[in-house]
Each structure stands twice: as C-alpha cells, then as structure tokens.
C-alpha cells in the first residue's frame, strides 16, 4: 500500500539537488573516446591532415602561389627527395621555396611537395563535399521513409510525377511544346488530387476520378526499393560510367560520388526514425503542438545522427579512395594535382622514381586509416550498449 502522508517535495531518496558538476553528453563521450588510443591517433592524424589541407589550399592557390604545383622545370625532372635545385639552370622565381625539393620532382620537374599540398586540399574537399551530399540526401529520404513511410502513393501521384518528369525531360531535349503540354497535364492531375483529397470524406469522389486514388504502394516501399536498387550497382563502376560520360571536373566528381553513396545514411536514418517516433518525447512534442518540421529536425535528427556520423567518417575515407582511384585511372580532373594523379604518373617510373609512388601512396594510406580508426572509435563511444546508462 502506498503511504500517502508524505508531502510532494523531493526526498533524499529521490535524489536531492544535483551536486555533481554538470557534464554534458559530449563531455561524457569525450572522456570515453579519450581512452581509445587508436581512435585518438586517428583523430590527431585527421586534425593534422585538416590543417595541412587548408594550409595547402592557401599556399597553392592563385596566379603566383607560394608553392606552385604546376610549375614545369623540364631540366629538373625526376629529382629525388631532399635534392638541391640546380641554381645555374633555373630562374630565381623557379626555385623551390624551401630551397630543396622536399619530396623530389616528377617527370615534368614539378615539385611533388607542392603537388601533395594541393592534393591534400582536393582530397579533403572531395571527402567532405561528397559525404555532405550523401548525408543530406540520406537524411531527407531516410527521414521521409521513417516518418511518413506509411503514407500511400496512389495512381494519381504516379501519373502526375511521370507527366511532369517526362515533360521536363522533353523540354531539356528541345521538344519544348510537347514538354510544356506534359508538365501542364501533370499539374492538372496534381490539382485534381489535392482538391479532391481535401474534400475526401465530405462527399463521394466522382466516378472516373476515384481511379486516381487507387493506392499502389507506400512511401516506405518506394524509398527502400530505391535504396535496394542503388545498392545493386557496384558503386565504383557506376561512378566510372558516369564520370566517363560527363566532363571531368572535380566538382562533378564530388557530386557523382555523393549521389551514389547516400544509401547507408538513408538506411540508418530510416531505422532510427522508426524507433524514435515511438518514443515518448516525440509523442510529447506532438501533444504540445510542435510542428512536424521541428519534430523532425530538432527532436529526431539529432538523436538519429550517431550512426550516420560514424558511417560519414568512414565514408569520407572511401570518397578519398574513390577520387584517388578515378585520378589513377585517368578519369580525374587534370587541372588539379591530386594524390591519385601523382600516383598515376608515378607508376611509369616505379623503379627510377619510387618517391612518386610512395609519397602519395603513404599519404592516402595514412589518411584513410586515420578516418577509419576515428570512425570505429566514434562508433564504440556512441553505442549505447557499451555505455552504462543510469
């Protein structure tokens, strides 16, 4: 029997005023993370790489950069690392800034150190932009599947989107008149759907239109189907095919990598949303009248981000690898020095100039390994099962 003669103030049994210094979740996670030596090493390498890459951008950027990665000195080709420049054949502005060729020169006499600096920046941006695109697509598609997944897609929805999509393709292909007609038709179908959808339940839908409301499948089936289809393609060959068809600009490469690697994030977000939306704090937010938009972005996304963060960290490493692979195969952007195309030019001089292979190879290896270790460490810290919860 419950004893009812107590007052409503908290007793010591309930836990009095908090005396412990306040610690955020971040601080707790950080303390756990610090204990993982390999992950810390990964983080340190990541920070150093970040500083070098950002520094590399400023030092190799512009018309007359501090370190010019594109300066050709044919008389100085294939000089080994740490060798001194030949002062007699070089103009003063052609001298390497460090006084020596720190990492040697390549077959055109370009300073490998400068090229590595620029390549670091390219790798960093490729990694972050590609993964950024992938994560944004993943959050949007995974979020829709997880939050609105039970919504139905009807014949009308499908018809409207096929008409509009076909029309836009028509316009792009130059068939403007047909394209505009199709878009207008699609818009008309959409308008019918919206108007009748609003009055649904108030009266019967006129004959003939009801076929538009025939439900085909749910939003969730559509999005998980799309994910599965995308996963069927081997990503690298998909990217190779696309890159072979479009101009090889570094921006396109970033976008293509991003557009083909969002499936992991989408799956994680969807799974997290499915369990989060059953949680009481989400129900509480709905009961308070918080908008759907705010519930998704303020309450659900932050709680769904841990697995995405982990996969994104490892995703950066694989984006860097993919870009290096593309450059190595000659599909990269030749107007920048990248680790991949330094490697690629080095393969022809493997015995004469091994530094052309080892320097970028070692850099790729270190950075990819560091990102993976960091990502694994994050996973351990963010895994609630490994953390005692009180």
């Amino acid at each position, binding site marked *: 029997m*419950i004893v*009812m003669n107590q007052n*409503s*103030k*908290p007793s010591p049994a309930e836990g009095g005023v908090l005396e412990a210094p306040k610690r955020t979740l971040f601080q707790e996670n950080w303390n756990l993370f610090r204990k993982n030596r390999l992950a810390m090493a990964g983080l340190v390498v990541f920070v150093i790489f970040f500083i070098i890459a950002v520094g590399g951008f400023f030092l190799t950027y512009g018309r007359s950069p501090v370190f010019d990665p594109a300066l050709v000195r044919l008389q100085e080709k294939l000089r080994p690392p740490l060798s001194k420049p030949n002062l007699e054949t070089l103009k003063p502005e052609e001298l390497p800034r460090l006084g020596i060729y720190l990492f040697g020169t390549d077959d055109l006499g370009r300073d490998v150190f400068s090229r590595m600096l620029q390549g670091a920046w390219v790798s960093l941006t490729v990694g972050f932009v590609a993964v950024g695109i992938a994560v944004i697509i993943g959050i949007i598609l995974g979020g829709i599947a997880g939050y609105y997944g039970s919504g139905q897609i009807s014949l009308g929805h499908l018809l409207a989107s096929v008409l509009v999509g076909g029309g836009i393709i028509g316009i792009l292909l130059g068939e403007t008149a047909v394209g505009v007609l199709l878009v207008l038709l699609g818009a008309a179908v959409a308008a019918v759907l919206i108007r009748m959808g609003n009055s649904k339940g108030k009266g019967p839908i006129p004959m003939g239109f009801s076929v538009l409301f025939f439900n085909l499948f749910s939003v969730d089936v559509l999005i998980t189907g799309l994910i599965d289809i995308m996963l069927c393609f081997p990503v690298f060959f998909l990217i190779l095919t696309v890159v072979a068809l479009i101009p090889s600009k570094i921006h396109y490469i970033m976008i293509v990598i991003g557009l083909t690697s969002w499936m992991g994030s989408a799956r994680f977000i969807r799974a997290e949303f499915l369990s989060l939306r059953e949680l009481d*704090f989400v*129900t509480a937010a709905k009961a308070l009248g918080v908008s759907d938009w705010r519930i998704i972005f303020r309450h659900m996304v932050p709680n769904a981000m841990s697995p995405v963060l982990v996969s994104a960290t490892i995703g950066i490493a694989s984006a860097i690898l993919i870009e290096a692979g593309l450059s190595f195969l000659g599909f990269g952007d030749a107007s920048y020095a990248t680790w991949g195309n330094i490697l690629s030019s080095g393969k022809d001089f493997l015995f004469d100039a091994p530094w052309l292979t080892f320097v970028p190879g070692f850099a790729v290896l270190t950075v990819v390994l560091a990102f993976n270790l960091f990502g694994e460490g994050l996973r351990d810290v963010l895994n609630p099962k490994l953390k005692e919860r009180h």
Partner: protein
Amino acid sequence: MADQGTDHSVLLVKGLKKYFPVRRGFLQKVIGWIKAVDGVDLEIGQGKTLGLVGESGCGKTTVGQLILRLIEADAGQIVFRDQDITAFPPEEMKPLRKEMQIIFQDPFGSLNPRMTVGQSIEEGLRTLDEGGRPWRRKRIRELLEMVGMPPNVDDRYPHEFSGGQRQRIGIARALSVEPSLIICDEPVSALDVSIQAQIINLLEDLQAKLGLSYLFIAHDLNVVEYISDAVAVMYLGQLMAYGPAELIYDQPLHPYTRALLSAVPVPEPGRSREWEPLGGDVPSPFNPPPGCKFQGRCPLVEDRCRREEIQFYPVEDGRRVRCWKVLGK
C-alpha cells in the same frame, strides 16, 4: 455515467473504438484485427480525476492517445468542453493541444536526451506565441519550482536526473502550456514506492492549485485509490466496471474488479477479500471470442456469457457493470 455531458464535464468520450490491423506475408494482407479499444465511454468532471485501471495490453495507452488525437479513432466521439473534436483537422486541433497534455510512464524515454531540461520545457512555451526568450526563461524556472525542482537545473541534461526527478520535469513540460486536462499514463508505475507517493502528492497539489482534471491510468487499483474521484476498470478494450471510487473499492460488483482487489496486498479493516484472485494471463486482444471478454478467466462463467455480447448495465449510484450474472439480469 450520464449519457449527456453534464455542464461541468471537461471530457466526454462515447463509443470509442480503435482496431489495429494485423498484417502478414509479402503482400501485407490484413489477416485480422487487434481490438485495442472496443467501445469505451468515459466522462471526466472539471477538476476531477478519473482512474483508468487494467492489466498490461488492455488498451489504456491507446485510449489516452485517442483522446489527445495522436492516433485516429475508428469510431466514437470525443467531446472536449462541448466541442466534438473527433474529426478536427490539424489546424483546428492546434489551439486544443494546449488544453490537453500527457505525462508518461517511462521517465527515460519521455525526455529528449539531447535537450537540456530548460529546452524541453521551452518546447511547450514556444507554441504559446507569448513573450520572448527572457519571458520563457523566467517561466521555465517558475515551472521547475512548481514541480519541486531547483530552478537552476534548467541547463542540465536528463541523464543527470533520477527517475522521480525526470517525472517532475515531464510534469513541468506538460504544465508549460497551461492545460486543463492531463492524461497521466501510468506516471508512477516505473518508480520506487516511496517516490510514487511523492509524485502522486505533487499531482494532487497541482490539481488543487491549478484546477486540473486528470485521466489517471494505472495497472493496479491500489495506485489510483487515493487520487481518483471515479474509477473505470478496463479489460481487453472494454470497460468492465465504472463508478465512484468508494463504491468500486467498498462494494465491487464485477468479478474482474473483485479479482483485482483480492490481489491488493494489505487489506484494510472492514473491507472483505473473500473473492478468488485472478488466475491465468491476459488473453490476446487479437480476434477475441464472442461474448464476455472476461469469460476465459471468470470464476462465474456460464454458457450465456459465451453466446451474447454483454451490455454495460447501469446500476444505482451512477455505477455501471458489464456482467449480467452479478446483477441477476
């Protein structure tokens, strides 16, 4: 229970039904229905507490969520302050969200782990369109004090608090929009007994101070005895008994109520406990057999109970009982 809402009733629920489809197979065909709520009538008076009691899975949470319109009812009416809100579209529901709030059983799942206590409470204040940040900050502190928490904990995260403290924070969040009805969904079931009493006392204090009405959900009669004015006993989606609290406890009629009371550990003097305690487990609400839902566990069961649907018979003193046998009908 009155068929017509009395002037002072806050909430009136009539014939509420919610069936969840059970799907199987590749094509997700519906193979049957879980009758989670199968015709429930309730009435809550202004400033009063209705206890809703039943075993796990009988549909109590579903009733609460239906009332709040967090899930859509399949049939029935929900009348809040003389407005039939059953089919209100989201825009019209919005102002009513401030009138009805909910507090939860699980003190761990009910607070967003990535928001400070202050931010969680502020989510309610934001929907009020009143005052700016300084006003909200002041109000957060007032609300924390109101629920017996030190006001300076607003920048702490939920993981730093005990279950009872989190429950208080959840109450503060519900109070932030100044509701008049609060659905308390087993607010003390997950707490230690000594803390249960404190939370119940807090809810009573707040009711007296703010004139709140409660629908107080619990899985045993014992918890709601002290706080309830009226009690409804639920079994497999239907109410089995309804009436003023004293009568339910002192002269239980329905075999299920009696069985529940016989499980109460310390009988009070003057209260008889000669009924058989409850045997067996709650049957599944999936495709239940016709007739009385309690037939499988009832000591008094007869053929008639399996043949016909049992009415919710009115008894004198405003009571209702869903059993023909104990009433001699």
